[in-house]
């Protein structure tokens, strides 16, 4: 599987008054797909956001190394340029900026070169097709008036177009109907196979994982990783939910 792309050691994270993550340690190798699961409120989204550099969270201890470099020293956009991507759970609306202009600007930023309109349209077409998205979406203002499902698809569209080396998917399947989950899954599969990307999928349900190849699963309860294992854990969670882990966590605390 190769070298470690992401190395998190003893990470402590606070937001305002509370400590949300306690001593998180996690390693993800290049090309691997890891899944982070846990009950609601466990702090899963926090981890995704901290990796991306959301100013709302403060790292009070530990370290994060990405591709051999100290991630915590980098600004949000530097991390993106280094190859990190976060598909947001609730992407913000940006009126006045169309989805396609936005993606094009981001691409131009990376390559440093202008991309012509027709060339861009050529590039975006296959991605739109995989995601079952009508080309007119590209001209709409970014996320403005998009339904939950449409917003998620727009995020995956960006994933496919920007082609990062490491993608974090934050609850990408929550709020989607069966068809939408399938579509989004297809997009993620495409990224996994065709682009050989590295993935961290954050979710509390297993639907999106069904068609994907998974290398490791971690369970997060109350801001701590209580167990790590392989894809078999997914089956167990499917059948029994998080009960075992919650009980374990409680016992350890008592």
């Amino acid at each position: 599987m190769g070298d470690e792309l992401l190395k998190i050691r003893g990470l402590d994270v606070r937001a305002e008054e509370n400590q949300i993550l306690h001593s998180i340690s996690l390693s993800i190798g290049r090309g691997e797909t890891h899944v982070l699961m846990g009950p609601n409120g466990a702090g899963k989204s926090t981890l995704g956001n901290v990796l991306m550099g959301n100013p709302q969270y403060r790292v009070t201890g530990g370290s994060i190394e990405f591709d051999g470099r100290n991630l915590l020293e980098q600004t949000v956009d530097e991390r993106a340029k280094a190859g990190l991507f976060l598909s947001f759970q609730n992407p913000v609306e940006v009126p006045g900026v169309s989805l396609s202009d936005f993606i094009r600007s981001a691409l131009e930023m990376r390559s440093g070169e202008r991309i012509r309109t027709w060339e861009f349209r050529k590039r975006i077409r296959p991605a739109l097709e995989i995601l079952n998205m009508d080309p007119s979406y590209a001209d709409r203002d970014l996320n403005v008036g998009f339904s939950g499902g449409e917003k998620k698809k727009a995020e995956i569209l960006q994933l496919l177009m920007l082609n990062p080396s490491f993608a974090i998917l934050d609850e990408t399947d929550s709020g989607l109907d069966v068809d939408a989950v399938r579509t989004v899954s297809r997009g993620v599969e495409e990224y996994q196979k065709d682009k050989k990307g590295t993935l961290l999928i954050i979710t509390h349900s297993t639907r999106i994982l069904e068609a994907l190849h998974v290398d490791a699963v971690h369970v997060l309860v109350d801001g701590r990783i209580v167990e790590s294992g392989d894809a078999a854990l997914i089956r167990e969670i499917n059948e029994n939910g998080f009960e075992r882990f919650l009980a374990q966590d409680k016992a350890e605390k008592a």
Partner: protein
Amino acid sequence: MKEKSENRQITVKRLPARTWYWLGMNELRMETASAPVRGEIRISLPEEVLMEDTACLPAASEGTEEAAGEDGLGTLLEEAVVPARIFRVGKGCRAADPLALTFRCAGSGLALHDVRLDLADGSSLTVLEDFLPSESGVKMAGVRTSFRLGRGAVLRLIQIQKAGSGFSFVNELRGSVGAFAKLELIQLFLGGGATAQKTRIDLDGTGASFRADLGYQLRGEEKLDISYVVNHRGKKTECGINAAGVLRDRSEKLFAGTIDFKKGSSGSSGHEKEDVLLIDEQVRNRTIPVILCSEEDVAGSHGATIGRLDENILYYLQSRGMGRESVYEMMAQARLNAVIGRIPDSGIQSEARCLLGSQETVAEGERENG
């Protein structure tokens, strides 16, 4: 407390011949030696529009009453005996092509224009006013555009200003909107030293409506003073004002929008929204959105968002690899593009985008050099 008297002073836009202090720009002086002259306009006249060029004294300002002590460009126009150019559209007539007026001001000193638009019942017209003064000599210009909209008439007026930094400009727009008539105004400010935009709309007839989209981007030491006064007189009248802009460097802007629901304007609604993106540390933004109301059965609102970019938006865009500066640039462009996008004529739209684009190149050049 001094600020309070400033509030009131704003509606007093008396223009003495020497200094224009209400713009807060004492460095503007009119040279007494050169008399104001009538400026030159290049006109593109659609067939359905009749033009009259009056050589006689202009009639006293029609319909609209002046606020106490205010005379705007009126005094200057009378003193200079500037004849008016009157454009008429006949009853029921819909002009297919836009009336394009390009104001090039020749000569030195002060160039004045008096333009009148008279739309008869059921007519419609799109008018483009381009304020692009030539660089040679002209330091100052004043344009007064007045209009009268008959019943059910529709006027789409697009004003685009782009001038150099040594230029001072007074842009006055005033007129009456008749029953069920509509005025759609788009004002784009893309450059010019010191500008005052003064707009007064009287929604006189039942169901009269007014919509304005204003976009501006100020750089360097530019100053922009915007004043809107919308008088709701008729019943069920409507107005919507959207102003979006960007302030850079050391520029300054004052936006005073007044929505006045007069008694008898029942069923009316008036809304004002302002969005100002402040980019550099030394800018100055002043905003005074006023609602006056003597009528119970109305709905009025105004909202303003001023300052830096929402931090959630900034974070999201940065997470896609855009540096902070690029994000700000993109959002600044987006604001102006949104206004340009509302221009109903594709030809004028592309012209506007061109002007915006060239503004960018000039600015980049300036940044690299200075």
